[in-house]
């Protein structure tokens, strides 16, 4: 029982540390690609500390509760995801619960932004939800392929099967699903080619328009956790998780650096282009992957 409580505390803290480190790494890699020296790796930490000391403005009770709900949702998702051996809430609902608890984050920000009563926010949220609909189609096909391949909905079982039967990306159909997941990774993270919902130039950073001191700090932490969640999901489903957290971290680092290099060089899509792209190539790959897994299974 004690180890479970220890894990309950440890895994969100680890996720936060890894997520914030990834944020700093992303800015550093982006700078180096653009021939700039770039900020120190701990710049996001400095920003968060500064934001916590800065006053802010609230537009009503839902404005506060929304951002709190969204961050709490992200923390709960982290509890469901295995990080190496650490997976506190493995037993109470598998991948489906992860999929549905991941709804807390966009819904929380949407509700708190809506109370902010600013048209930039509303446009940002409507784009965020349309983009969500866009990347959800291939993401669901990918998750269903993984679930039908392993005939289970608990992610811990998938990891344990992969431990001894080899990574699932090596088996032919799940390779297609893995590639399709990697293609939609920037959309899930909301980074450069797909940051239509928080575009600083067009809609002055969308849902973040009215976020000031501590709200922006919570929003940055939530973005870091979403970063961690989507990459951890990829590593667990396709790269076979890991026995101990260090190997798990190394795998995540590789996937993340590849993702950031893609995102650093692309201009931003328009929202129609983004959804058309998401519904074309990644969906085709994921669909073929699912059909083949279904054929093999039955």
């Amino acid at each position: 029982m004690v180890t479970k409580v220890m894990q309950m505390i440890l895994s969100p803290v680890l996720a936060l540390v890894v997520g914030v480190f990834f944020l700093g790494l992303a800015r550093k890699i982006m700078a180096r690609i653009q021939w700039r020296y770039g900020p120190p790796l701990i710049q996001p930490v400095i920003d968060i500390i500064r934001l916590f000391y800065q006053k802010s403005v609230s537009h009503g009770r839902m404005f506060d509760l929304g951002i709190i709900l969204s961050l709490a949702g992200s923390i709960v998702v982290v509890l469901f995801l295995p990080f190496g051996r650490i997976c506190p809430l493995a037993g109470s609902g598998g991948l489906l619960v992860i999929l549905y608890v991941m709804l807390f984050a966009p819904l929380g920000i949407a509700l708190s932004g809506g109370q902010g009563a600013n048209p930039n926010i509303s446009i940002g949220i409507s784009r965020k939800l349309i983009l969500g609909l866009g990347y959800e189609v291939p993401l669901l096909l990918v998750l269903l392929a993984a679930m039908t391949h392993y005939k289970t909905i608990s992610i811990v079982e998938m990891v344990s099967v992969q431990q001894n039967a080899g990574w699932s990306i090596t088996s032919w159909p799940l390779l297609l699903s893995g590639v399709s997941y990697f293609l939609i990774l920037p959309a899930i993270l909301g980074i450069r080619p797909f940051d239509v919902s928080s575009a600083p130039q067009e809609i002055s950073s969308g849902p973040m328009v009215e976020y000031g001191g501590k709200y922006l700090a919570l929003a940055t932490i939530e973005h870091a956790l979403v970063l961690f969640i989507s990459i951890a999901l990829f590593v667990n489903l396709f790269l076979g998780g890991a026995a101990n957290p260090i190997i798990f971290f190394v795998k995540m680092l590789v996937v993340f650096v590849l993702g950031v290099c893609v995102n650093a060089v692309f201009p931003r899509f328009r929202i129609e282009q983004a959804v058309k792209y998401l519904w074309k190539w990644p969906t085709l790959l994921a669909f073929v992957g699912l059909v083949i897994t279904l054929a093999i299974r039955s």
Partner: protein
Amino acid sequence: MDRNQIAKWLEAPAKMANKYSLHAVYFCTGCGIIEVPPVITSRWDAERFGVIPVATPRQANLFLITGYVSVKTLRAIIRTYEQMYEPKYTVGFGSCPINGGMYWDSYNTIKHLDKYIPIDGWIAGCMPRPEAIFIAVTHLWTLIDKDMANGYTRYRESYRFYRRNQEMALGKLEWPPLFATGNKSVIDERQAVRSQQ
């Protein structure tokens, strides 16, 4: 650049965090904004010092007034400055915000911007080059260290006078006063000033 000295972080985290994470409002107020893109891109890279442009005043704590201030722009500058959260710092570029510069006798520019919003730092030069901007940033660090960058506290304490000057320059303002300006209305204060002259 004492960013890596842990002792300073532990002793005064708020001050250190404010120093090394200055997010500037990307609001082009005058001709000086043409100097800001080279500052934030690969040629000079202000991000080394933690200075990045952000889209809205809500997320910012540094406001660069770049170049001359026309009467119409003053209305937007005051609105943006009031929407920023404390602690906030402002830096004036060039001589035009100081005393009107070469537009000293123009009917349509604001002469002493200091009368309307508090300014923490001035950079000389008609338009200062990126090196001068970095000198201003480092100068702002020292001001923050010595607690002299207190433009926002000055604005809060003597808000009545700032508000009065703003209404004298711009006439009726659509937005309500940021801080309570006491019961006496500011307009009849202006009659008193005019009668003294």
